[in-house]
């Protein structure tokens, strides 16, 4: 298409202000209408997932190589430790067997209905948010593997976060440390409910704690199951500091995640379709958690 020189010059001069205005507008309005962005985001993540995975492969192999060398160096020491651990575990196995049979008998006695089937899928981290105010990861499993919004992501150590976006072959997990993460939790033992809110630091904050029962450093924090978001008693972390702001050190090492497990407990959750991580939504769920007994 041919346009006259003055018109072209005008268009060129206006492009930059227009684009600056557009990006500012998008950034401000984005929170209001994230549904469209969500769809674009999911499609884009799905399309670029193979690229990210291939690009991440060299990094992963270097990391594996370093790991192998480390293992070779420490193999003797590890062997000693493993032997000890094995001894200990064999004793535990004995205990577990005894408890299992006892448990079965007792269940028969009270006609206990077992929980619904739990399935889980292992996922590799293919992208990291890479921002000072963002704590989320992109993993290489999606709706094809049965992943759905709201499902918890775990490592062997404990809870990592929850699924907030699902594409065909990718899913985004909001980590516990993200400023938009609000998880209903309970203090193990006393069963006092509280909320675990991310605040962009390494250790999320424990808020809405019952004033009657003080929280001690070292208390174990588990999911409370309220709100139907997560099942109760998933391990989350331990109370790290109680001076003023109560902070929780998560069991899962959120700083270096390579693999996570996304677990399907068959819960519907409290996240309806189109739910977006906004502070407003977060506050509403606080109110709900705070008002529940």
């Amino acid at each position, binding site marked *: 298409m041919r346009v006259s020189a003055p018109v072209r010059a005008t268009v060129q001069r206006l492009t930059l202000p227009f684009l600056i205005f557009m990006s500012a507008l998008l*950034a401000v309005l984005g929170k209001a209408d994230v549904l469209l962005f969500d769809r*674009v985001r999911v499609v884009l*993540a799905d399309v670029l997932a193979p690229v990210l995975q291939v690009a991440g492969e060299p990094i992963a192999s270097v990391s594996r190589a370093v790991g192998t060398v480390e293992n070779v160096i420490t193999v003797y020491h590890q062997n000693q430790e493993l032997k000890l651990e094995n001894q200990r575990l064999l004793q535990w196995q004995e205990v577990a067997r005894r408890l299992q049979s006892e448990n079965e008998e007792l269940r028969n006695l009270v006609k206990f209905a077992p929980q619904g089937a739990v399935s889980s899928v292992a996922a590799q981290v293919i992208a990291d948010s890479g921002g000072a105010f963002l704590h989320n*990861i992109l993993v290489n499993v999606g709706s094809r593997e049965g992943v759905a919004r709201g499902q918890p992501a775990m490592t062997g150590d404990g809870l990592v976060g929850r699924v*907030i976006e699902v594409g065909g072959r990718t899913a985004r997990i909001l980590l516990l440390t993200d400023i938009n993460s609000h998880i209903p939790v309970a203090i193990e033992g006393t069963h006092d409910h509280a909320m675990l809110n991310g605040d962009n630091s390494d250790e999320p904050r424990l808020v809405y704690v019952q004033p009657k029962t003080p929280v001690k450093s070292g208390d174990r924090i588990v999911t409370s199951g309220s709100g139907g978001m997560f099942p109760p008693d998933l391990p989350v972390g331990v109370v790290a500091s109680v001076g003023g702001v109560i902070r929780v050190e998560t069991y899962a090492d959120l700083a270096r995640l390579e693999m996570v497990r996304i677990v399907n407990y068959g819960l519907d959750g409290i996240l309806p379709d189109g739910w977006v991580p906004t502070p407003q939504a977060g506050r509403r769920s606080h109110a709900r958690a705070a008002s529940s007994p």
Partner: protein
Amino acid sequence: MPYSRNRDYVGFVARMVPGTTTFLFTLLSLLPFPVPSFGSIAPSFALMAVFHWTVYRPDLLPPGAVFVAGLLLDLLNGTPYVGLSALALLLVRTAVLNQRRIFSHRPFSVLWLGFFGATAGAFALEWAFVSLMQVEFLAPRPFVFQTLITAACFPIGSYVLALAHRAMPALSA
């Protein structure tokens, strides 16, 4: 003539180098490096690419391309504020373009200092914007840290971009 068509094609490839490297650098900052907390301090490689090409070949990285790169970054990193990176990158491009004369034919240290300033500005903008939208002051430390890491990684990014840059005339010749 096939010869000139071939030259056209090679010239086209050369003109694509700034855009392509910017795209690749944008993806690079999303990769999960096995460094503790890398996600929150990952250097902004996209910023390096935009800075480099704005100083040397702004004609080959027009505002539209910078906008797309920023939007791509925002859509892939899952931020609720899609457009914020695009805004930051476009403002960096505008600022650098206005001060281009300072950087031409000067030692690398001047360029580095300029990049540090641009990075600090970009992250200050992000920090201010997100704090405003979240209605609470975010801890500035991660942002300061990310600025320092990004500035510290600039020589590496700049070196890679310079390699691509040097390959360009060879391609278009």
